[in-house]
């Protein structure tokens, strides 16, 4: 069955360099540096990536950072809390706009 997303494509991510090598090279080098141990640990960065993956709803990233979070020593409870952070920000981002709705409603109401 043909679908827009194919799990096998994740492993082919590096192939993007076939069409444009210099930019891909820069991107992957930058990507590697971003996820290296720094002021944040690799485990913390992986949990952030997992949360962002859910916010942007990328199935490749969800697969990749679920595995990576486990491989960095996180547990399921911590991973679920990370996703709730994404959900809270997304939900909050909608709700905070309700103030704008209220402002407008008040502006045009008697």
């Amino acid at each position, binding site marked *: 069955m043909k679908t827009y997303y194919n799990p096998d494509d994740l492993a082919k991510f590096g192939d993007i360099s076939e069409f444009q090598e210099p930019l891909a090279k820069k991107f992957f080098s930058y990507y590697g540096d971003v996820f290296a141990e720094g002021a944040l640990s*690799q*485990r913390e960065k992986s949990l952030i990536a997992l949360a962002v993956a859910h916010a942007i709803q990328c199935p490749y990233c969800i697969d990749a950072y679920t595995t990576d979070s*486990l*491989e*960095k*020593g996180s*547990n*399921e409870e911590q991973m679920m809390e990370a996703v709730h952070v994404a959900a809270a920000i997304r939900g909050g981002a909608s709700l905070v706009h309700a103030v704008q709705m209220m402002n407008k409603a008040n502006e045009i109401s008697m």
Partner: protein
Amino acid sequence: MERRGSEFADTTAQLRVLNNHRDRITALPKFASKLKESGLWPLRPTSIDILQMNVGYMCNQTCKHCHVDAGPDRTEIMTRETMNQCLDVIRGGGISTVDLTGGAPEMNPDFRWFVEQASPHVDRIIVRCNLTIINANPKYNDLPQFFARHKINVVSSLPYYNKRNTDRQRGDGVFDSSIKALLALNEVGYGKEGSGLELDLVYNPVGAFLPAPQKSLEADYKRELKRLFNVEFNSLFTITNMPIARYLEYLIASGNYEAYMEKLVNSYNPAAAAAVMCRNTLSVGWDGVLYDCDFNQMLELEVGGAAPSHIRDFDRAALTERAIIVNQHCYGCTAGAGSSCGGEVA
């Protein structure tokens, strides 16, 4: 596995699957060819420093990932005669460490006798204690005191610092019982600074993924075990699950086998390959047969070449010159930072 009628009770079936299971597996490079690329072929020992003795496959637990396929129904057990043959080798010198494993090594009726005999002749005795054995029967309750008396290095599996993940792999109630045993070990001084009594824990992934970096996970374990249970320990060893025995069955049944093998192969690290544990460890089976490691023992791959195949014929020179028998499961020792009975190697 035999009792359940599993096809993998036959070790040749395991080796067949490791080499020829569908195209994706057949396409993977042979471990031997990777060693050739790394200039490590044939793989030879650097010394024979550690004698790892499997004193029997009987265990009070039946963990899902167990590479020994151990359990209460296993009857293979090392006799005092074979232990005496090991003692002859130990007394001959050149062995710094005796590493006792099983099953649950403490269930061998001659376990304590052997420790008493061996301890004057080596620098260190390691006991791979599954923790719950200490609470399994009143006759084992004084193991912490016995270990302390002989300054045993206790090395114990705790696949995670919470109940959910530990019990999923090792069985219901194992986590609580393990914590109780760890507290009993702490009580006699194990894991406490300055006591000289070393207690190390072993992490292995609860599933089809690779272990976390050892140092950072050790910090998490130390913080959480202290905070939640007031448990202390010395070092954490992270170990990769080997694709053999019950874990191999799990990989296949869960549909993770091919991806796991590809991951192991893609994570091959030449530095880890140079430091694999079979280069300084010799493994003795419950019946005295010699193997390059406990994993080869479970696959019935005896030491090769002109080396003697039984501990009673131990010959240091011939064994040091032997070529180590490798196969596709060896990728489990060389992925990432590597994996051994003492955790990361590179």
